[in-house]
């Protein structure tokens, strides 16, 4: 069924473009651009769609040699960033006293389980999770609207233009760079560039709702204090004065987002290390070694998370530039 395959393929964008926002993106956008966040969002989507348009013209599906190694490193870096951020989220919200290693293990088991399946199963799972997260998102939206205060959005024009432009660049990078994963998937869909950009715009629309809601309920002064403001506003949901404190269930939205992103990264890494002789065993061993490294270097101290908050945009920019340099041949052909 071609139509269903296309919609599965398009549903991946929704998750890729939201994955790196958790914990870092929303906080930064609101702190730098302050009340004029909406302008940087608009400029950022336009920039992001241009970047995606160029990215989608390249493909590294059957690459060989040095190109393969470079792509492996790039996607590996994206994978580790997402993994570190995800584990930080879970250990701040759900399981505060447990070791981060214990949180990491079942996640990796489920990701490796998904790796044994075909790539069409990835896309089917992403479509089902998309419809689930849409339901949760609509419930959140409707129950948070009464808490908005319009004074939190004003004054609109007091922020330096330099800040707005810089934030829009950051926004564009955060939401469009993970889409380089698309280059490694084989497909034969017509007009896919246009369709992916449409779904990218839709997912950015949902993200703007989230950002505007956090700005409206909390106000900029409070957002300075909290690490995950998009989680704090969920505490205000109270339906019928009875269903309170359901923020842990409604945060499943973020878990689904990060999961699809991580599993697609790892599937691509698996495919890249595919060799005739030992494809089954290289990749899982590699994963477990890298977890050990992560656990002892990245999670050990707070300096790394501070570093990430300030310089993630630089890492993503470097990744983008290296990607364009290595894949410029396939761009010329098309």
């Amino acid at each position, binding site marked *: 069924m071609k139509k269903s395959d296309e919609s599965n393929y398009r549903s991946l964008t929704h998750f890729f473009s939201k994955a790196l926002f958790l914990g870092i993106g929303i906080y930064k956008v609101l702190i730098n651009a302050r009340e004029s966040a909406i302008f940087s969002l608009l400029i950022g989507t336009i920039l992001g769609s241009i970047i995606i348009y160029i990215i989608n013209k390249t493909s590294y599906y059957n690459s060989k040699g040095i190109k393969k190694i470079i792509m492996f490193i790039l996607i590996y870096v994206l994978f580790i960033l997402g993994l570190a951020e995800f584990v930080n989220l879970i250990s701040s919200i759900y399981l505060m006293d447990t070791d981060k290693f214990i949180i990491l293990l079942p996640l990796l088991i489920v990701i490796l389980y998904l790796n044994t399946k075909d790539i069409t199963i990835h896309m089917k799972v992403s479509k089902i999770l998309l419809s689930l997260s849409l339901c949760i998102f609509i419930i959140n939206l409707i129950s948070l609207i009464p808490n908005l205060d319009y004074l939190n959005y004003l004054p609109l024009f007091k922020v330096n233009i330099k800040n707005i432009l810089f934030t829009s660049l950051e926004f564009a990078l955060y939401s469009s760079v993970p889409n380089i994963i698309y280059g490694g998937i084989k497909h034969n869909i017509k007009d896919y560039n246009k369709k992916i950009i449409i779904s990218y715009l839709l997912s950015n629309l949902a993200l703007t709702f989230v950002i505007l809601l956090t700005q409206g309920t909390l106000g900029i002064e409070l957002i300075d204090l909290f690490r995950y403001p998009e989680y704090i506003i969920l505490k205000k949901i109270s339906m019928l004065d009875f269903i309170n404190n359901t923020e842990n269930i409604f945060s499943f939205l973020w878990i689904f987002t990060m999961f699809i992103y991580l599993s697609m990264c790892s599937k691509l890494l698996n495919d890249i290390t595919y060799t005739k002789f030992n494809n089954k*065993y290289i990749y899982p061993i590699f994963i477990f070694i890298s977890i050990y490294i992560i656990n002892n270097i990245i999670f050990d101290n707070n300096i790394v998370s501070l570093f990430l908050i300030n310089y993630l945009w630089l890492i993503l920019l470097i990744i983008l530039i290296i990607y364009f340099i290595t894949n410029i041949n396939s761009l010329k052909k098309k």
Partner: protein
Amino acid sequence: MKIPKIYKISILILIIITLTGCNTNYKSLNDMSIISSLLIDKKDDKFITYIELYKEEKSENKSKKLSYYITGTGHNIEDAINNASSLISKELYLVHMNTVIFSKEIAQNNLEDVFNYLETKVQINSNYYILISDNIKELMDSKNEDNPILGEKISNLIKYSSNNGPMINYDYLEKLKNYVSNKKDIFLNKVEIENKNITIKNGYYFHNNNLVGTLNNDELKLLNLFSNFNNLYFTFKIDNKQYIIKINNCDINYKLNNEININLNIKGNIYYADKGLDLNNVDLIEKINSHTKYSLKRRIEELLNKLINNKSDIIGINNYIYKINGYQKLDMFKDKININIDVKTNKKGLIQSTLGGSK
């Protein structure tokens, strides 16, 4: 595709690790004691905390709830609570806390300690209330027949009381927002004891987070006009006869030219009128309207003068000016404020006239 062997080994490793009890987040219900309210006092440079805990009662009538207190002292609030928690055999569980009450001395000198401590406890459901009290120890001895738990009684008073005169339903997060912003000042309600029963009366207001003065019930009622409220009852006197107006709705408009103009549109109905006031008389009703108007205007101007003298901006006029017209450079403390009130008593109900009215 069959699952390769290495994945099965990894599942085994996971099971072995988890079964050795590495997960310390497991809290069974019996090992938790739930906190209802937190009372903080200060004595000789040391913080004393009284923590109210829910008491388990195994009886057939499960709707009975009781509570008991434990105390602890320390150099700061976190220290005091830790010392208190060493007196019970269970772990303290803060998430369902209802109220935090601290004494006036702390409000004058150590307000930032309280806010710093509360801000770090993000897991707490942010719907609790903070209040001030003059005599904290006597709060523990008060008897409350409708709800024996102090924290729940106070939070229910704020949420559900029918005449929410002195209480404005701002929970902790709103207070934190005002505390942090430099354009708006906070005010806190006060808990008082009358005949061993707890009420909420009066309040304190701050400027730059220093305690500056008190507010009484009438002034707090007027403040309510500027925020969300359900019903407000104001008493007025005309020709030595009393009448009470019940206000349902108040729309506020600001007009900023060279002066600050605040327009209030008030809609309400006459809730009670003394004998001798004929509600059928159109003239009388117009007289009532205008008398209410002037009386309210006078009261609000008095409140504003009081606030301006202490340079405290509870209502948020400066905040509003900054957000709407930042370039106007108006200031509540320097420019003139004009208040225009328009009162309409538009509902009458089933009563046509009062006793002895038409004669």
